[in-house]
Structure formats: C-alpha cells, structure tokens
C-alpha cells in the first residue's frame, strides 16, 4: 500500500515537472518578438556589446539608487571605463544605445537629493574638464562632460558649447540633440531657455526635423514670446530671432540630376520605343532548342542588370559586364566585356549559386563605382569587389581589393554616394570566428578611408552551400543618408544610425526577424516563402518606415526622438517600396497600400509576376510597375489599374522602371527599352 502511494506521488511529481518544463519551453517559444535584446543569443546580429562589468555596474547603480545610497550608486556608475562608453547596452523600446547615453539618461533621472549628491562628488572634476576644454582638447572634453557629467553644474554649459561646435561644423542633428537635451533635462541651468530653444529650433530646421521644429516653434511663440535673445550679434525677441535665422536659411532644394524625374508619364497603347538594347537575344542567338532550354532554366538568365543614369549616359552592370549607352540613341559607347558567351559560364555551379542582385552600380560625374564578381571564379564563396572606374571608358581607377586599408573587406550591399562621400556596407571575417558587419566611408575619387565603423558582429557563420543550384539568399545591407545621419538596415534584425561625418554609431534598433539559414545540403531547408528584395528605410515625415527582408513586421520609428511610432504585422514576403502623405506602399505578392494614419490595408492589387523585386515608380499622380505583361499604371488612391502599356519587352521577368527626363526606361533580364514618357493623354479605364 505504501509503495503504491509512493508510486502515485512520484508520478504526480513527474507530471508536474514535465508540465512546468513544457510551460517554460512554451514561454521561450512564444516570447514577445518586439522585446529585443542585444544580448539575446538567438539574434543573428549583435552590436558591439558592453562588457559584463558595465551591466553589473548599471545594476549596482540601480540597486543603490533605490536605497538612496548615492555615493555607492555613483561610484558604481563611474567604475565604467571610458573604453566602454561607445559599447552598447539595451535601451528602451527595442533601441540599443551606447553606454555613454545610458549613463547620461540614468543620471538625469536622478531625484533632487541624488542630483545634489552627484554634484557634490563630481562638480570639481567636470569644472576642471571644462576649464581645459581649449584647442585640440575642446571637443573631446566637452563630449566627455556631455556624456559623463551632464548633470553637474557645468554640464549644460558644456552641452551648449558642444552644440555650437557641431552647428558650426554642419552637424545639425547633433547640435539639435545637445540643445534639446538642455531644454528637456536641465531646466535648472543658468542658460537662457529662450536662447537655447531658438538655437535648437534653427538646428532642427536645418536638419530637416520638421515636426520637432514645429513643436519647438510653438513653444517659443507661447512661452518665450517676449524673451530677448542675442544670436549672431543681434538682439531680438525669441520668435523674431527664430524667424530671422530660419528665413535666412530657407530650405535648399535637394540636388537634382537634371533629368526631370517629375515629368508626367503616359504611355500610349501603340507607341514604339525610342530604342531597345537587347540582352537576351544576343546571348540566345544561334542556340539549339536544348541549349536554349538549359539557359532559360538557369537562374542567371533571370538576372536584370543594375543601371545608373548620369547626364546623357546610361551605365549598366550586367553580371559584371559593364556598358555605357547613349541615353538618347541607345548606342553603345563602351563595354568591358561581351556577354554572348554567358550561357557557358552559367552552367558552372559557382555561377548558379550567385545572387545576381548583388551586382551594383553608381555613377557620378567622371567616375563609376561598381560591385562585381568574376563569374569565371569557381569559388562559390568568392568575394564581390568594389571598383572605381572612369566614366568615359570604363578603365579601372582603383579597386578596394588593392587598397591595404580594406584588406579582407567585401561589400555586403550596394554603396551610396552622399555629401561627397562614398559609403559602403561591408563584411569581414579575417581572423575572426564569425563575420562582422561594417560601414566604410571613403573618398570617392581615390578610395582613401575617412572612417570605418563596426556595426555588428554576426552570431551565425556565413552562408554555406553544398551541391548545385542553391542560390545565395543572404539579404543585402541597405544604406540611407539623411541630414548628416547614415542609416544602415542589415535586413537581419538590426537598423543602426551612424553619424555620417565621424562614423560614430549613435544607436541601433533591434527588430523581429526570422533566423537565417546558413548551411544547406542538397534540397533540405528550402525557403518556402518568396523572398522580397531588401529595401532601404523610407522617410515619411519624422519617421523612418522599414521592414527587414526576413521580418514579418513593418516598423515606423522616430530616429531623432528614438521612439517607435508604430509596428504592424504584415507577413514576411513584403517590402516597403515608397511612402507619401496618404499611404505606405508595399510590394510583395501584391502591390498594396497601408493607410498612413490608421495603418489599415487600403487596397491590394495583384500584378502579373508580383511586386517582390524591381523598382516601382510612385508619384502623386500614379504608380507604375513593369511586369512580364507590360507596364501597369495604378491609381494610388484605390489601386485600380488605369492603363496597361504592353510595350516591346513582353515575357521578360520583373523589370526596373526608371524615369529619365522625357523617357521611361524598362530594364529587364531580356532588354533595356526606352519609351517616350509622355505619349498618351490621361485615361480612365485600361484598354483590353
């Protein structure tokens, strides 16, 4: 009898334990995808993490702060060394912030008695730093006070001076942040709040942070209406000063390439192209049916070239074969290599594993910058190369691989050119167990480095492929430059912001993402969802709207206030193709629009071939997409197909659509075709 009772008790215990374990496992499985931590080992990328001691120091500070043990709390905080101030810890709402910022946040949140104690301990040190902030040491000392001693008596003054320095150097974003921090966190400072508010407003205006500017201007009109301010040697009331300074720096129109990108588009049903450059016909000429079948079933036959327009020239990067075409006539100006024999290279396994979308091209003035790879290289893990070439003949000026500063780096996405600097996302795995994600800033003409910044370390190895026909599917890193800030979307769960001038990593935002398949054998673990192209973040008002290629959510964050405006589930196979006042446009199996205010799905239109890749032209008067069945024109209000222009490139796969002045170019895997952009009046219903 007693044994029976023991047995029952054991069984009950075992059941309880197994239920508990299952619950823990369920909790782990069903954890909130929006609670992202930089230290989560399940995340594919990790920003440069702070040492364990830093996290312990922050925990100690919190513990002592709760007890009111200020001396011990502050001592714990100041055990953090300067070398850790630019390492990263978890911030609020999914943001990953530098230790310096975290320290400033916890210090400014101290209650009055904590502030008093803090100033008692650290005022002298801060004053000493401020006194020594002259000459070469000025910026370093001011930054140190701003990050470590902001809540001391001299912290606000140091932040004000740092703001002035940044403003003078054109770093309006950073200047605005300094002054806004004073306004928000140091209302007790001796500085004139009206003057600081005007300075902040001017910096916000220059940085293009519209809603913040409107907010602070309203505050100036309301609170500091009669307060005198002296700025630029002139004394006036705060609102007058603001008007004078903002009007003096009227917003400068963004540089135009002179191509008249806003020319209206209206393609008549039977308009003949101005010219057509045939790619597929050249490769397929003379092929026997068996060869043709082999070529067309090869992934490389679906590759559409990367293209860029500069002046009157169209530059094309077709699988590493570079060409320059006259935009007016389509005449070939030069090419680096013929492509009629591509079908032979395409049969090799290494070529079949290539992701053709990694070939990229930038053109500006007398130079081209290309991302290419030798198709003949039979190393399936062979690196892509960044090269600078002369626009007039395609001759190589410099190669990243030849410059010792970039030894081991490989471009991991298309480069961008902004403010006279070439920014390149790159990865490196030299002497490292796992690849690292970097951003390189270089002089475009000579390739000399301006700065190099490590954004994150991968927790997964590089993709490895075994056996034939497995195309690389690592999402490409996309960059976006905006008002002196560089945004990096890794497309594997991390968006980061860097200071474009210095390369300083400001913050990261971790978002939900699916794990990356890094090893594949035979046909196992085939992706089942179609994968959309990775897009750069899109600017919409003060927010950045983005969606990772592997994420099932769309995010809108305010990068300046570091807040999440909204996040919304949508499904993995989608990308953000554009935004306007009314809608956020998404490409995927359908082209669809989210209402920008309510975030409800307004409409979805399925177009032939879907909208997973290739450029979509979005304008207030219409949306255009090139499909295998012609160019479709949609009404942005309801997604109705207004017109279908069949054109001369039917049967091609997804094509990029490029508006170039009075021409509309379709760039597909089969041909580049230029049509007159305006050849038909607006039309209500599509012709059938």
């Amino acid at each position, binding site marked *: 009898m007693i044994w029976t009772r023991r047995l029952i008790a054991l069984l009950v215990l075992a059941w309880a334990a197994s239920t508990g374990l299952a619950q823990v496992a369920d909790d782990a499985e069903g954890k909130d995808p929006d609670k992202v931590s930089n230290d989560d080992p399940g995340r594919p990328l990790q920003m440069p993490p702070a040492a364990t001691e830093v996290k312990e120091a922050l925990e100690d500070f919190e513990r002592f702060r709760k007890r009111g043990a200020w001396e011990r709390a502050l001592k714990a905080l100041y055990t953090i060394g300067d070398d850790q101030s630019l390492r990263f810890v978890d911030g609020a709402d999914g943001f990953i912030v530098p230790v310096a910022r975290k320290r400033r946040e916890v210090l400014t949140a101290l209650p009055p008695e904590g502030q008093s104690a803090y100033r008692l301990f650290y005022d002298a040190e801060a004053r000493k730093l401020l006194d020594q902030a002259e000459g070469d040491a000025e910026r370093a000392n001011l930054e140190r006070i701003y990050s470590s001693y902001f809540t001391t008596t001299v912290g606000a003054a140091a932040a004000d001076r740092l703001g002035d320095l940044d403003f003078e150097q054109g770093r309006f974003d950073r200047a605005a942040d300094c002054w806004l921090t004073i306004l928000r966190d140091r209302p007790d400072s001796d500085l004139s709040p009206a003057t600081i508010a005007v300075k902040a407003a001017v910096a916000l205006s220059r940085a293009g942070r519209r809603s913040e500017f409107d907010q602070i201007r309203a505050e100036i009109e309301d609170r500091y209406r009669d307060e005198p301010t002296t700025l630029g040697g002139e004394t006036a009331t705060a609102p007058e000063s603001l008007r004078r300074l903002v009007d003096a720096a009227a917003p400068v129109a963004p540089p135009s390439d002179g191509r008249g990108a806003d020319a209206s588009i209206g393609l008549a049903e039977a308009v003949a192209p101005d010219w057509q450059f045939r790619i597929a016909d050249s490769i397929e000429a003379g092929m026997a049916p068996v060869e043709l079948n082999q070529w067309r079933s090869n992934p490389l036959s679906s590759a559409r070239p990367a293209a860029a327009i500069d002046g009157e020239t169209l530059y094309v990067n077709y699988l590493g074969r570079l060409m320059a075409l006259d935009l007016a006539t389509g005449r070939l100006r030069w090419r680096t290599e013929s492509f009629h024999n591509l079908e032979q290279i395409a049969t090799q396994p290494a070529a079949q594993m290539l992701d053709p979308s990694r070939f990229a091209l930038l053109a500006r003035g007398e130079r081209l910058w290309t991302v290419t790879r030798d198709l003949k290289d039979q190393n399936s893990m062979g690196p892509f190369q960044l090269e600078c070439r002369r626009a007039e003949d395609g001759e190589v000026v410099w190669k990243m691989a030849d410059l010792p500063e970039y030894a081991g780096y490989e471009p991991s996405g298309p480069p961008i050119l902004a403010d006279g600097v070439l920014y390149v996302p790159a990865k490196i795995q030299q002497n490292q167990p796992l690849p690292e994600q970097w951003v390189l800033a270089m002089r475009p003409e000579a390739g000399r480095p301006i700065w190099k910044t490590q954004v994150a370390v991968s927790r997964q190895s590089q993709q490895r492929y075994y056996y034939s026909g497995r195309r690389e599917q690592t999402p490409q890193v996309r960059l976006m430059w905006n008002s002196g800030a560089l945004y990096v979307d890794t497309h594997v769960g991390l968006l980061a912001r860097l200071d474009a001038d210095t390369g300083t990593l400001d913050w990261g935002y971790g978002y939900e993402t*699916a794990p990356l398949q890094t090893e594949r054998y*035979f*046909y*196992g*673990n*085939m992706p*089942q*969802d179609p994968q959309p192209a990775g897009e750069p973040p899109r600017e919409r008002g003060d927010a950045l709207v983005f969606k990772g290629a592997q994420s*099932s959510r769309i995010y809108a964050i305010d990068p300046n206030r570091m807040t999440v405006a909204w996040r919304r*589930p*949508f*499904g*993995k196979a989608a990308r953000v193709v554009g935004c306007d006042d009314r809608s956020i446009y998404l490409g995927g*199996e*359908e082209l*669809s629009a989210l209402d920008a205010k309510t975030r*409800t*799905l*307004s*409409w*979805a*239109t*399925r*177009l*032939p071939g879907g909208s997973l890749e290739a450029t979509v032209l979005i304008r207030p008067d219409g949306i255009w997409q090139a499909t295998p*069945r012609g160019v*479709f024109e949609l009404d942005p209000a309801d*997604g*109705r*197909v207004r017109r*279908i222009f069949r054109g001369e490139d039917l049967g091609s796969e997804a094509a990029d659509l490029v508006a170039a002045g009075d021409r509309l170019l379709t760039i597909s895997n089969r041909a580049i075709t230029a049509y007159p952009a305006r050849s038909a009046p607006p039309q209500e*219903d*599509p012709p*059938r």
Partner: protein
Amino acid sequence: MKPPRSPRPWTIAALRLAACLGMAAAVIVAVPPPAAAQVAEPSGVEGLTVQGKGSVSARPSLAEIDLDVSAAAELTGDAIVKFRDAKKRVHDAFAALKLPDVAVEERGLLLDQKGAAFNPYMMDYGVQTKTKSEVQLSRKLVVKASGIQGMDEEAVLQLVGRLLDVAQDAGARVGPPANAAMMAYRYGNMQPTNLVRFVVEDYDKLKEEAYAKAAADARARAERLARLNGVKLGPVLSVREVSSDNATRYYYSGMMLSDAPTQEEDDGARDRLTTPKFQDVPIRVELQVRYAITPAEPKR
C-alpha cells in the same frame, strides 16, 4: 572437411517444373480479363445476340476557364482585404468587357494556411513547421463563355485569348491551383496543363440520340441475321451496354487534392462532356442486345 554436395537430378527437375508452373501462373494472373464486350456467351443461351452502335457528334457550346484567386496575410483582416480586392478586380475586369455571353461564377471559399506546405523537392522532409503560417483565402472562379458552337475557330480563339489576357491582367491565376503541381509530383500524377475547358452542354440529349441510334442499329442487324437464317425475331431478352465513351474528362483524385472539391463537385455533379480541344466531339454508344427467335412460319 566435406566437399559441398551436388543437387540430385530429380531435385533439379522438380525445381524446373515448379518454376515453369510459377511462370505459367504469373502469365495467367497478368493477362487482363477480356473486356466486357468480349465475354463469350454462356453455352445453351438461346436467341440472337447482336451489337448495335450509335454515334452522334456535337460542337462544344461553352468554354470555361478556371481562375484561382487567393490572398494570404499574417493578419486575417489583411487577407480579407487582399482577397476582396483581388476578387473585385477580376469581376470588374470581366464586367468591363461588356460581353453578354461571358459570365464569372464563383465556387466555394477555401480557408487554409500558407507556409505549411510539403517540401516538394524531397520526399520526406515534410512540413516546415518553423515557417510562420499565414491565413490564406482562396476561391476558384470559373469564367464561362457560352454560345461558342456557332462561332468559327478564329472567333473562339480571339474570345478565349481575350478572356485569358483579362484574367491575367487582373491578377488572377489561370489554370489549376498553385499546389496542384506539387501534389501531382508528390503522388506521381499528371498535372493537366490546358487552360481552357470546352463543354458540350446538352450532353443528355445527345446521349439519348446516340442510344436511339445504337438500338436501331442493333434491331437492323438482328433483323438481317434473322432473315438470312430463316428465323423470326422475337422480343428483346436482354440489353447490355458495351461502351459509352466520350471525350476526355478531368478527374481530380480524392487523394491528390483531398481538401479541394473535385471538378465534378465544383460543377454541381452535372453529367456533362468536357474536352480540352475545340472540335466536334463524338458520342458513341454500343449496345449488346439479345433477341428471342422463333422458327419462321413455313411459306404456304
């Protein structure tokens, strides 16, 4: 150590005999049974047995195009918006054609999940459970163009081409459902590749005609045989349908698309004749009829 013993001659002979018997049995089993039409009459049955054939042909009067409209999303609300828009665009596109003889019919709504399908490339990799499932709504639409029996081939081609173009431009998927190819591969079936189905609508009436012709043919044959053999034809003792063939039908195996309705279910289980080709479709009926015979009355 003893050398291996060689088999005795009688053992070999017995084995050979067994092999021969086995092969004979296999051949007997493998040979198909004779078709119903060829079954020999059991001996001792009296009467006269003939086979009558009747055939009529008809032109399809209806062209049908199957469209698949589907939408998937993580939020069911999004899937509904996508699905509603997709369906509306197809309906609007066909309505804009303003063709009185073209109609779009809807079949049943299917709700399932996307992203949990079998891996089509490897036999037993099974469902990828890590893939997040999305709600998927799908519905088959059937575009019907009637009155084509009086049209010439060129006109039918123009009409069908227009319908196919409109359907594809409206974003509908033309042909069998998206997973049909995968399932066909999985179960070793042939996937139909035709895009248009031609239907002979008045099939019952035509079949009636063919049966009448077959019966008349049987009667004529029997009368001739009776006359030639000097007997008198009596009443019909039995009738057996030997064959009633028609043009190719589509069959969707229940195993192949267990969750999808079969074509017959979709079409309301109507008995109708479908063909992938636009041509005159023959409807053949073959009947085996046995008549009683009596000796002919002697001539006076």
